């Protein structure tokens, strides 16, 4: 693993508000690392500190062993892409893209050649002489990317680059960025609140919450093996079941049981996070891990269905079942439910358990 950006113990306070606390991670050379978190998690602040647009109160930023913490923005040679493009209104597309080179006083021919190269790369050749207000959002963001890439930066920093675009354009650009990265291989740091984006694009994800790092791992790791309740709830939809630990299992209601609480003490309160697609309808009444639940609502979503299930003790879970497995189940029926792959955490963090319904809706 070749070392790219190393972030050590970044801290930043704005007035009385602690925006970033002890954030450390490494972004591998040539890979895309995503900073994922809800708004207010401090991820943009971290990115801006890496860029040099904000000064950390404490901590260190290095690139390939070279310290960057005190270097002014202009000297860091990091490309930055803003959420709202920040294109120079009074300059044409060509002038925008060439700006970083013009500032470094490169020759006119060199600038022209490089700008042409990038226009080709971002597929905006016919728009070279247009002005930003004549472009669509997606086009503007491509110009912004080209502009950031023109001076051959060592690192590319993207601050919610697709946040201001509508859904379809966002998907397109996401795919396009992926291709671009494969071709160029620039070390990239992507800030996003869209977990689908992070999971799809990134080689490694740093999940942030309230200014701190929650978990660092590959997309698969953070999705399948969340190590904190926040990650379990934020990444992917999750049902949260409240219960108590008995013999390494979470018990709730009369007899209902979920495995996976070995790490917690007997008798302790626990929360089990279960993904909707891990709520299985089983026919096996004998299995101690399956138990009845009442179907409150079935919503047909085309190829899957969303089932709202209520357990005897009143708790509700959302299940996502492929239609072919569903059969003739309707409202009011009682089904056997098996909860798989639960991630169990102790509920000492005073967090509001996310409503499974909302979670489900968020990721569709």
């Amino acid at each position, binding site marked *: 693993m070749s070392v790219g950006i190393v972030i050590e113990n970044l801290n930043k306070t704005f007035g009385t508000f602690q925006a970033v606390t002890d954030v450390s991670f490494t972004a591998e050379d040539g890979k895309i690392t995503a900073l994922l978190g809800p708004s207010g998690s401090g991820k943009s602040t971290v990115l801006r500190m890496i860029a040099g*647009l904000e000064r950390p109160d404490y901590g260190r930023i290095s690139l390939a062993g070279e310290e960057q913490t005190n270097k002014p923005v202009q000297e860091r*040679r990091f490309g*930055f892409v*803003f959420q*709202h493009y920040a294109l120079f209104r009074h300059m044409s597309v060509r002038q925008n893209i060439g700006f970083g080179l013009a*500032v470094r006083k490169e020759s006119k021919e060199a600038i022209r050649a490089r700008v042409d190269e990038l226009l080709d790369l971002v597929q905006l050749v016919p728009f070279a002489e247009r002005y930003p207000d004549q472009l669509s959002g997606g086009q503007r963001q491509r110009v912004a990317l080209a502009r950031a890439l023109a001076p051959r930066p060592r690192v590319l920093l993207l601050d919610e680059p697709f946040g201001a675009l509508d859904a379809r354009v966002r998907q397109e650009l996401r795919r396009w960025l992926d291709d671009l990265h494969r071709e160029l291989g620039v070390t990239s740091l992507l800030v996003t609140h869209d977990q689908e984006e992070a999971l799809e694009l990134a080689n490694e994800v740093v999940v942030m919450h309230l200014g701190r790092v929650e978990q660092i791992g590959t997309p698969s790791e953070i999705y399948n093996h969340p190590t904190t309740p926040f990650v379990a709830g934020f990444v992917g939809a999750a049902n949260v079941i409240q219960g108590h630990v008995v013999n390494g299992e979470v018990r709730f209601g009369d007899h209902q049981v979920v495995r996976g609480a070995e790490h917690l003490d007997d008798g302790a309160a626990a929360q089990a996070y279960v993904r909707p697609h891990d709520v299985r309808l089983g026919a096996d009444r004998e299995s101690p891990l399956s138990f009845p639940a009442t179907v409150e609502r079935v919503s047909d979503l085309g190829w899957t269905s969303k089932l709202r299930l209520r357990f005897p003790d009143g708790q509700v879970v959302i299940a996502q079942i492929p239609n072919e497995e569903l059969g003739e189940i309707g409202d009011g029926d009682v089904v056997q439910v098996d909860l798989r792959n639960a991630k169990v955490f102790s509920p000492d963090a005073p967090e509001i358990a996310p409503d499974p319904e909302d979670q489900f809706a968020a990721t569709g």
Partner: protein
Amino acid sequence: MSTTLQEPRTTARPAGPSSRPGVRLGRLSLRATALLYLGLLIALPLSAVVAKGFGRGLMPLRDALASPGAGEAIRLTLFTAAVTAIVNAVFGTMIAYVLVRVPFPGRSLVNAIVDLPFAIPTLVTGVMLVALYGPTSPIGGFLEGIGIKVIFAQLGILLALLFITLPLVVRTVQPVLLELDPAEEEAAKSLGAGRWTTFRKVMLPALRPAITAGALLAFARSIGEFGSIVIVSGNITGRTLTAPVFIFQLTQQFRPEEAAAVSTLLFALSFSLVLITERLIRRREAV
């Protein structure tokens, strides 16, 4: 100073209560009042001046310009107005920038002080300058000792005009500065541009219309200034006599036609400048 009126919007008006006869009469009388105002109070007096000045052809103008000191007065007026416009364009922009972007203790006080010339009578401005730089004051005496004459000299005129027109430039540039997107400047910096380059290539193009408008307003205001200059300059024919004071002298000498002719010229110049300014600071339609 606020901005100009916008072009009329073209949304349809709803019918209904607004077409009641009482309302229509009310609206008619309002329109009449406004028309009356515009016509009587504005257009009429102006036509009186133009008619008087050029009713007998170009002779009154020629006579006026042939008077001793007339040519110099016009030249002095234009010159001092130009210098004022340029100097205040530079400093006014710097001050606007500082007031918007650079926090420092006492900034809001300075912000208020910048408006002072709007409130103070121009005559009092002249008196203040005489009090500060007049030959009997310590500063004035000192300056005269080293050969710098302020009162009864062109420098005094400049100081008065700079004082009076400062808020014009600052207040024209400030709102535009406030609207600038700081992200554009951050982008420039992330691409390697230093502070001055960022200012020159990113901020200045956006500010240029406002700075020009402010400078033109300052110029237009300066060529018409009377109250302060009549005190500060001494009105020495051929040396510190300005056009407005010259016009005043013409009226006191019972030469109204010549006064009207020169007035028309002066007015035509300032009005065209104001028109150009309005085009420059035409506010963008709010979305």
